[in-house]
């Protein structure tokens, strides 16, 4: 990591019980705190009232098509990998009313729905999800016609990130260069250290507001040993990724793979249920639904998460452009790992592994991609 002293504060160290003071500060600053908590047998994102709501003593076991909440004996707050939820739920909500309209005579008038966006502080954000946030920013904020409601929600966000030292069985952020170390886009980053009975946090502010908040936590200066410990733990995490993906030349290789036979094989397994797109922290596709009341006087426009795995997604008069399951899986994967690069200058994948864990039949993006890359030399032409 290259420290950027101008923005970043000095590393400091604090006791686990002082994490509560962070919560207190956030509440004082009128933030609603969103973070990991145990609910419905999973570590999900939810509103946290205090550190007691954090999943202390809980971890998870993840593999293709499987997530299991598990107990562990250590006192850590953040000893788990990505859960089923991501920041997307909050910044790009699954269902938003954009406006309402009401009829008057021949005409009608449109009233914009004022988007509520309170101040949200996310606690425990991993590097993968921060990269996903950066990607959503590119999609919704960077273009010539940005999404105003996204921008509004985004502007009121505070990020307390956590360096990931417990990658899961489906993680591959290391391959995507999106983790496990938090390197940008945070207000405060924490590393939780627990060994041989010593349990403490190393923190560092990454923004002005982060610095203000950090200052309120009882702390001492972090020693060079502490910092080395952080470094070691992150390096260790890098070697414990459950999955990996070779990204060199990935885009070009995939552009050549449109007619690869593997798509057909995957399509036989793919349920085209859309789970991967729903749990993906960067999948942003959405649809508009126009609804009316019975009297026909009131109408509303809703924006809802959509998935490229449906036939409606590509429907134009006369039929669906992507009617085969093969073409839909291909669209998704090539979008994530190739066309996304052309559109937004980055992969659409951050290596969080959610699509692998939550695929009901365990289809593995890294495995599919590897299979295509491996035999691409024999494959047929596609896009150059």
């Amino acid at each position, binding site marked *: 990591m290259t420290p950027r002293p101008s923005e970043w504060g000095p590393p400091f160290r604090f006791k686990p019980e002082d994490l509560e003071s962070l919560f207190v500060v956030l509440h004082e600053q009128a933030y609603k705190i969103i973070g990991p908590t145990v609910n419905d047998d999973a570590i999900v994102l939810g509103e946290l009232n205090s550190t007691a709501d954090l999943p202390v003593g809980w971890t998870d076991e993840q593999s293709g098509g499987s997530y299991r909440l598990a107990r562990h004996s250590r006192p850590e707050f953040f000893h788990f990998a990505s859960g089923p939820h991501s920041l997307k739920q909050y910044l790009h909500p*699954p269902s938003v009313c954009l406006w309402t309209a009401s009829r008057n005579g021949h005409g009608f008038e449109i009233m914009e729905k004022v988007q509520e966006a309170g101040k949200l502080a996310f606690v425990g954000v991993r590097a993968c999800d921060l990269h996903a946030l950066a990607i959503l920013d590119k999609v919704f904020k960077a273009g010539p016609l940005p999404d105003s409601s996204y921008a509004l929600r985004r502007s009121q966000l505070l990020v307390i990130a956590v360096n990931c030292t417990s990658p899961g069985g489906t993680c591959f952020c290391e391959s995507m260069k999106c983790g496990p170390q938090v390197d940008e886009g945070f207000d405060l980053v924490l590393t939780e250290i627990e060994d041989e009975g010593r349990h403490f946090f190393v923190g560092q502010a990454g923004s002005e507001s982060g610095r203000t908040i950090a200052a309120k936590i009882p702390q001492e200066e972090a020693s060079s040993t502490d910092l080395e410990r952080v470094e070691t733990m992150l390096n260790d995490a890098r070697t414990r990724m459950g999955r990996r993906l070779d990204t060199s030349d990935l885009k070009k290789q995939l552009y050549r793979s449109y007619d690869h036979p593997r798509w057909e094989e995957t399509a036989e397994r793919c349920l085209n249920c859309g789970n991967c797109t729903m749990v993906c922290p960067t999948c942003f596709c959405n649809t508009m639904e126009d609804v009316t009341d019975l009297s026909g006087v009131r109408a509303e426009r809703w924006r*809802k998460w959509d998935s490229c795995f449906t036939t409606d997604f590509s429907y134009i008069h006369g039929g669906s452009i992507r009617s085969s399951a093969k073409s839909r899986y291909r669209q998704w994967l090539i979008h994530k790992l190739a066309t996304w690069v052309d559109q937004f200058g980055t992969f659409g994948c951050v290596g969080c592994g959610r699509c692998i864990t939550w695929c009901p039949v365990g289809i593995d993006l890294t495995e599919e991609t590897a299979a295509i890359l491996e035999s691409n030399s024999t494959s047929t032409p596609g896009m150059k």
Partner: protein
Amino acid sequence: MPSTRRPKLAVWKFASCDGCQLSLLDCEDELLQVAEVIEIANFPEASRAVVRGPYDLSLVEGSITTPHDAERIHKVRRASKFLVTIGACATSGGIQALRNFADVNQYIPLVYASPETIQVLNKSTPIADHVFVDFQLRGCPINKRQLVEVLSAFLNGRKPNTPPHSVCIECKRQGTVCVMGNAGAHCLGPVTQAGCGALCPSYRRSCYGCFGPKETPNTHSLSQWWSSHGMMNADICRAYRGFNAYAEAFRRESEAREK
């Protein structure tokens, strides 16, 4: 576009539990409004008054199970400009279509005292097997929000928002934790059409397919997965033999697992 004449609505019942037409009466908040914008012309469960047809909109509940009903449905079709089937019975034969899988010869010893007084068809079949259906609203039972949506769409001349995609999409939009990935449940959500509000998973229960197969369902792959995780064929077969057992994709899969 609302016009001056209220469209005439008729509700018809075939073999069913009445739950789907009851959904209309369960729209407590909308019922009086419905009656304002639609003339409830023929709805025996709600009224003894009957207005003659033809009807602008017919809601048909239930499946065809008797020779008489097989004739009656044609009369209903002729009296209806726009015919919408409501519920699993009407769209896939319903729970009573379980008889379609039975061997009639095995039924004969069980026939009760005077079987000759009752005429029943061998199979319970959906309405669309008999007449042209303009729109099918799924569910066992239908979802009343979807029913109001279909009525609103009909009145406003738009396409109803009743997407044919999976329960999973609806489920994840709600932020529900997947019961399949997370609890290893035998959830039919990935092959079942949305519309119920992904109810079961939100109660930590696996989907049991009330809304029938979604578009392009890959039932085979789902069964394979279950099978490889120790589920017995008989149980897989039963999973597909629920309230939409006779819907093509479910029927095929259950038959494949029957041996």
